[in-house]
């Protein structure tokens, strides 16, 4: 099956009216039932199936129009290997389902809404004077608009409530504060994380409201961070608030071997069987003290990061137009004269044999901008997000970074550790089925 985003056919966009009670469920079948089976097979009609949506050739017009969709079904969830969309929300929930059966109902409902929202379609008609089936935020038709819904579980879901303790992913734990963290419980942790990413802010908001409405009995929003990605300035990887290109070094999402080594959990002990195809997700809310940062001379900023500010290239590349794709190399610089030993990127990946196993993560971060604090200071920063096959990789990396030179300019104050579920395979599958159907 194609792992490219699908394009809505005219047939599909014209929509098919179905009975409201069966709509959500049957919507999965619409593509096949609408007489465009060939298009379904080619991945042209959502919800499609993917090995894991990934880097792609964006068709700008389709993206602008919100017509493009990422396949929902697949071995892995979309929104991980997917090239980051412009807008995102990270929603952390406390699960309130009373028991395992209600939890299953919750996961099924979440699955139905995610499958519909990511594929798009016409909301079902409702009788007069009934609540509308859709808020019409996206117009007459729910546009897929590159939406991905990515569901992950926190360690707290595996406490005694649902009898899942023995099935907890081997490395999943509640995020502990690193040195210089200032974790606020109100914006940390959670039983369940929903990551919504899409081409536009309204699509993300629409998806959030839809999911909240359909899962109200089973979970309650605990905290949320909205993020966005900037356009390339002028080329390459987008910059963060600090003016540096962020998230340059990543595994190649198209390289299955590399993704299977570094991101996707593989079958076999010590991980419980149901986790295969999932991945550990880390979200960290990192406030940046930008007034302070922007008084630091650029040379010093570059020394702190270990990259050139304008180009994003490693320190050895002096041209302002050097590519941000150049690899950092420190091997002939053991004293850190060119790339400081305690700069951000060198601590993240020191390129030594001892750290080789704890240096590869898939970065997928966003920037945030929230209400100012009580003193009137802007609250802007990084909604850091990364995925890795082993949570220990991230913890080891962040432990190396505990005393990095960036410390005075940032304050990590929220987020959590989660386990992003394996993909939903098909219309008969649902989020966490492998977990919930274990004896």
């Amino acid at each position, binding site marked *: 099956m194609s792992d490219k985003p699908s394009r809505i056919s005219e047939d599909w966009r014209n929509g098919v009216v179905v009975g409201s009670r069966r709509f959500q469920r049957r919507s999965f079948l619409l593509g096949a039932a609408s007489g465009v089976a060939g298009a379904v097979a080619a991945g042209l009609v959502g919800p499609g199936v993917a090995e894991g949506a990934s880097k792609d050739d964006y068709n700008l017009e389709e993206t602008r129009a919100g017509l493009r969709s990422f396949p929902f079904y697949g071995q892995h969830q979309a929104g991980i290997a997917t090239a980051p969309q412009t807008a995102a929300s990270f929603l952390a929930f406390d699960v309130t389902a009373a028991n395992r059966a209600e939890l299953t109902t919750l996961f099924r409902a979440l699955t139905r809404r995610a499958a519909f929202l990511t594929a798009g379609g016409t909301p079902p008609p409702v009788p007069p004077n009934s609540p509308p089936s859709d808020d019409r935020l996206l117009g007459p038709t729910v546009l897929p608009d590159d939406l991905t819904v990515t569901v992950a579980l926190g360690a707290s879901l595996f406490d005694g409530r649902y009898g899942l303790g023995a099935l907890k992913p081997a490395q999943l734990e509640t995020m502990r504060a690193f040195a210089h963290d200032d974790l606020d419980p109100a914006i940390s942790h959670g039983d369940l994380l929903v990551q919504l990413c899409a081409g536009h802010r309204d699509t993300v908001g629409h998806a959030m409201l839809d999911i909240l409405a359909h899962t109200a009995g089973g979970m309650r929003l605990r905290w949320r961070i909205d993020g966005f990605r900037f356009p390339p300035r002028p080329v390459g990887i987008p910059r963060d608030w600090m003016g540096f290109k962020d998230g340059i070094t990543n595994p190649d999402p198209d390289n299955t071997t590399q993704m299977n080594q570094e991101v996707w959990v593989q079958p076999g002990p010590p991980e419980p069987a149901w986790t295969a195809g999932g991945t550990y997700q880390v979200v960290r809310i990192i406030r940046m003290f930008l007034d302070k940062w922007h008084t630091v001379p650029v040379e010093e900023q570059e020394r702190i990061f270990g990259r050139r500010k304008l180009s994003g290239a490693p320190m050895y590349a002096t041209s302002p137009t050097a590519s941000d794709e150049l*690899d950092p*190399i420190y091997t*002939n610089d053991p004293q850190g004269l060119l790339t400081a030993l305690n700069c951000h990127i060198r601590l993240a990946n020191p390129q030594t044999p001892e750290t080789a196993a704890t240096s590869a993560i898939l970065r997928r971060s966003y920037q945030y901008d929230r209400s100012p604090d009580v003193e009137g200071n802007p609250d802007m920063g990084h909604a850091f997000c990364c995925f890795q096959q082993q949570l220990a990789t991230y913890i080891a990396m962040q432990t190396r970074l505990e005393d990095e030179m960036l410390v005075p300019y940032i304050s990590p104050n929220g987020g959590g550790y989660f386990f992003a579920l394996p993909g939903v395979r098909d219309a008969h599958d649902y989020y966490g089925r492998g977990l919930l159907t274990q004896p």
Partner: protein
Amino acid sequence: MRTLRHSHSAAARPQPRTLQWLALLVSLGMLAVTGSLAAAWSATGSTIPDRSIYVTNQLDNTLSVIDGSNDKVVATVPVGTSPAGVAVSPDGRYAYIAEGGANAVSVFDTGSRTIATSVPLPAGSGPRGVALSPKGEFLYVADSGSDRVSVVDTATLRVVASVPVGRQPVSVAVTPDGGSAYVADAGSDDVSVIDTRTNRIIGVVTAGQFPAGVALTPDGGSAYVANELSGDVTVFNTRSGAVEATLPAGTSPFDVATSPDGLWVYVADLGSGELVVIDTRVRKVVATVSIGPYGTDPFNVAATDDAIYVTNQGANTLAVIDPRTHHVVTTVSVGNSPYGVAVDPVS
């Protein structure tokens, strides 16, 4: 160690002249070779000599041994920690490996394909580049962490001198007469010249920014220095110390080697993924060979008459390039993050 010392001393006895001529020594872009090498090869009637290529793999702590007749990896051997530069003894029996992460030089027995012993260096040495004297009696080790060059007597396997040089030395080359060693001091933007009889500094030549590799022409008359940060190659006269040319050479030239006939200088350009070819007669860049895209990271280069070998740190490969056609003939998968490369033509 005792056994090794004994056997090595025996091995260090004078060799037949042809063997000496065949003793092509390449390490870290340093090429020490007699001018008669090409003649020796043609005299034996062998156009493609049997040879072994040794590649250190920095991140998985191994040495790849490659059969030069078919460019296949024939052995992958655990070595120390963060192996960096490598040099092969003129008799081909030993490969000396700078253990960048372990402050030691490992002595690899090419016959048994095991580490025979290890020469400890002081803590913090951070050895990177290595070069042997032409007859193999002394190994010069650029200790990038301690701003020194360790001189190892290969017969006794003892450090007989520790020469203070410039800041963060990473590459070293020895003149074909064995009289001088040239050290690229990446951190102080210069090249230190060591008189190997006294093991003292007799000159310092200003290079470009962050000189990362140095090589000498077979006549010993010119030094070529790859300046990683200024993106150029400094050419200076070894007799006068005068800089005679500064040649723009790629984005981030990282290492340099001369061809055995002295006509060509090859520069590994880390940034562009290219090999830059300089004609030493006109001192101009005459060709660039694309080895791979961004992320290939050409690293160290070694040259023989019929092949140029380039370790590609990012691609985890050894590229074999035909010096006549400038085509990549083959690409050999090696270990994780290959660093140094040395060629032994007498395998």
